[in-house]
């Protein structure tokens, strides 16, 4: 990606006032630059949740991980690439175009479903699987104690998925919730039923009832 294109993108992202669009555009330019060097970035955390729900959740930071098959991501390479975006700070967190970008470690995922993909303005971005984000939020909503924000996030996910706006693999949700790393299936089942009742749709975890 040449300097002129980067400059144009940065001006656009800096001027963007919608926090959800701003973070997806920023993820797009970061992904494009890192992809050129063999590193695939994945959007995780609040920006990933916002991508699926538009639920007014994300803060002013963008969390990215890199995928398992990527080239090694040295601190020097991080600094070089984020430097092209005029990023201030580092080596794991930068201020860029009026937001913070955190590049965390290699993504940890148990999900067997694919990362979802968005053809964003500066190149495609990959987003953490909604099945695992949902099960994670349900775990955090009850363990180690009740967490209302996490519960509301999970409910937003469920409502958008139940209403057909996200294609979710419900068998994968069930499998993940039952795994020893989560052990949250009864709570997951109950919350799916609760939201399904609220939006008047049959629970996909009990299609025959």
């Amino acid at each position, binding site marked *: 990606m040449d300097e002129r294109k980067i400059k144009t993108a940065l001006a656009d992202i800096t001027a963007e*006032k*919608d*926090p*959800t*669009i*701003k973070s*997806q555009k920023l993820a797009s330019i970061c992904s494009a630059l890192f992809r050129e060097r063999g590193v695939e970035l994945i959007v995780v955390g609040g920006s990933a949740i916002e*991508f*699926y*729900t*538009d*639920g*007014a*959740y*994300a*803060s*002013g*930071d963008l969390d990215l991980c890199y995928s398992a098959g990527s080239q090694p991501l040295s601190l020097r390479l991080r600094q070089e690439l984020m430097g092209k975006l005029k990023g201030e700070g580092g080596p794991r967190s930068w*201020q860029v175009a*009026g*937001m*913070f970008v955190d590049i965390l470690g290699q993504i940890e995922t148990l999900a067997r*479903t*694919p990362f*979802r*993909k*968005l*053809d*964003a*303005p500066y190149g*495609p971005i990959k987003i953490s699987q*909604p099945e695992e984000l949902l099960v994670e939020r349900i775990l955090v909503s009850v363990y180690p104690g009740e967490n209302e*924000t996490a519960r*509301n*996030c999970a*409910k*937003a996910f*469920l*409502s*958008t*998925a*139940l*209403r*057909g*706006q*996200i*294609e*979710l*693999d*419900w068998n994968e949700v069930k499998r993940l919730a039952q795994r020893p790393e989560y052990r949250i299936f009864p709570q997951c089942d109950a919350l799916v039923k609760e*939201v399904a009742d*609220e*939006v008047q*749709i049959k629970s*996909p975890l009990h299609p025959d009832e």
Partner: protein
Amino acid sequence: MKSKSKVPCIPMNESISWEDWLKGRRARRESSKLVTPEILRRKSSSSDGRLRKLFSGERGLPFTPTSKL
């Protein structure tokens, strides 16, 4: 589960175009708000210091109202 709406669905195995993702924003927000409060953003986190400094005391830019999505 089959889509019950004409709103573009975020698919599992293909990419969603930017235009379709934008087109679905309002419907996704409305679905979320059927079962949750208006704003879900956390009130605090370990990033509070840097966020509030950058966003004039807030933790991020204000969200676009649903009516303008």
